[in-house]
């Protein structure tokens, strides 16, 4: 058992050495000229606006909640998908309909939020 993990340990040490080695080498070789442009946050080349510690718009909250609901629903889809073939041979098409019903209920919730105007950005 120890031997099995030895490979992982060696891998870990090599990975660590490679990272630190790279950084140290770069630090030794490069010349240092810090400036305003260089110190700003790098985010896909976009110019950053303001700090990160601002209050976000309340609107994000609704989207976050809706996202969480649909995100967590997937947790039920996974076990169902894993045994789907077995279910299909035992229960026939009902196995599919059951999940469709579950998703239908969730979609009804989405439609409700939509109709009530919570998805609009005002």
């Amino acid at each position, binding site marked *: 058992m120890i031997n099995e993990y030895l490979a992982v340990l060696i891998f870990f040490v090599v990975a660590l050495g490679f990272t630190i080695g790279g950084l140290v080498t770069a630090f030794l070789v490069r010349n240092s000229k810090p400036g305003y442009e260089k110190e700003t946050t790098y985010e896909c080349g976009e110019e950053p606006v303001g700090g990160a510690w601002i209050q976000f718009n309340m609107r994000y909250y609704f989207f976050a*909640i809706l996202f969480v609901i649909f995100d*967590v629903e997937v947790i*039920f889809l996974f*076990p169902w998908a894993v045994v789907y073939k077995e279910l299909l041979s035992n229960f026939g098409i009902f196995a599919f309909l059951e999940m469709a019903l579950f998703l239908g209920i969730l979609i009804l919730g989405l439609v409700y939020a939509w109709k009530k105007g919570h998805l609009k950005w005002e």
Partner: protein
Amino acid sequence: MSNLYFYTVIIVSLVLFLIGVYGVLTRRNAIGILMAIEIMFNAANINLVAFNKFMHLEASIGIIFPIFIITLAAAETAVGLALILAIYRNIKSVNVEKMELLKW
């Protein structure tokens, strides 16, 4: 060997649970309390998964149960955050000691 491992897992879950209880009792920030409660839910999850691994449970209930707990914890948090947000608009604070309209 595996028995020792089992007890380690159970003790970890117990410690998590106690951390959660401590957090609920000492925190003054409603969001902090919510996070402590989440830790408690996860303690139960770890417990169940450990039982499922080391004992022989009927129909893998130890795996199925946590799935439902995770989902419900998410739903509960969604509702809870909405409520905390609603009260934040009123009293401009999420400190539970400031919620003193109702007592005795």
